[in-house]
């Protein structure tokens, strides 16, 4: 049989647990538990909203469709900008290790606001025009993105290893930092390799 002092300890413990249970709604308002890892997602899907059938062998005056998406897991709503850029093989991509962006000027941009735990997706339609081939070089004169034509005048040399004139259409994710009141490269980028095959 337990001693009276032991029963007293049991009663005190039950009393403390009971008080904590009654105080839990108020404690929930005051105490904030640390949230999980904060990150964002950036993706490109093919025309069927799947990770397949991406355009690769492309030609002039043909319309291509992909979907660009952003997922927010930052713990609060976020303000993003997705910059669409176009490069040839000799121009630099963003550096994920150094966290630096590509120095190329953006052609097109999406500005979007996403709540925490939610995602955003938009179509990206593009086509090329004024494409010419001379010798071992290919020149793309214009690139139309979502109905807006940009003069790019970008040339690519014949890639002997991969047999093609390669370009890359890529997207960079930038996020608005409320503290610095400026946009920062969010160290996320995705791209599509495109092999220019016909005029």
């Amino acid at each position: 049989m337990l001693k009276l002092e032991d029963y007293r300890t049991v009663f005190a413990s039950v009393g403390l647990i009971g008080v904590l249970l009654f105080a839990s709604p108020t404690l929930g308002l005051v105490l904030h538990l640390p949230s999980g890892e904060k990150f964002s997602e950036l993706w490109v899907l093919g025309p069927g909203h799947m990770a397949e059938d991406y355009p690769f062998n492309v030609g002039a005056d043909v319309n291509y469709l992909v979907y660009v998406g952003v997922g927010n897991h930052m713990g609060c709503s976020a303000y993003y900008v997705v910059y669409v850029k176009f490069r040839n093989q000799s121009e630099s991509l963003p550096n994920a290790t150094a966290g630096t962006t590509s120095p190329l000027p953006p052609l097109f941009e999406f500005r979007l606001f996403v709540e925490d735990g939610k995602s955003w997706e938009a179509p990206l339609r593009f086509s090329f025009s004024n494409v010419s081939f001379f010798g071992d070089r290919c020149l793309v004169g214009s690139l139309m993105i979502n109905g807006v034509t940009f003069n790019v005048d970008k040339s690519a040399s014949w890639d002997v290893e991969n047999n093609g004139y390669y370009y890359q259409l890529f997207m960079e994710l930038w996020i608005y930092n409320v503290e610095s009141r400026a946009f920062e490269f969010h160290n996320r980028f995705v791209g599509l390799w495109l092999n220019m095959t016909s005029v």
Partner: protein
Amino acid sequence: MKGLCGRFVKAPVLFLLVFMIFSLSLTRLPFYVSASDEASSAIGEADNDLRRAFEAVLEAESVGANVSGLIARLNEAGELLAEAEIADKIGSFSEAVSKAEQCSVLADGVMDEAITLKGEVLAGAQIAFWQDLTVTAMGSAVFLVAMFFVWGWFKRAYAKKLLRMKLEVASDVEA
């Protein structure tokens, strides 16, 4: 004679034409520059308005407001600003100004609503906090008093049980 006369007439007309074209090009340049400046200024203002609206929405969200509707409207404003930036990039300055102004109007509206929403939520949250605190205090007090009575009853029952116990003497215990 007629050819000479014609040449005399043609020369001033030609000069006048060249002068007019030159003047026009000079007058058009400031228009172009001012249109570009106007577009840049409108875009800068819209960008600022959109950032402030987002910050207001974020503050409303931090106090527990449901900001889904405001986020949807911010997306509309963001789309307009992106269109304005692109129009400016391709030289459609009037379109850029128009889109930027629409963005500013939308962003201002969102900011006002976010501030109002934050105020409402804060007032509601304060009432909820005091209600929770009252429930906690009252509940805890009632529970502790109940525990105190149960403890008293238990102590008495425990003592009675002890008193009712018979003394047992073991017969085979060696002294």
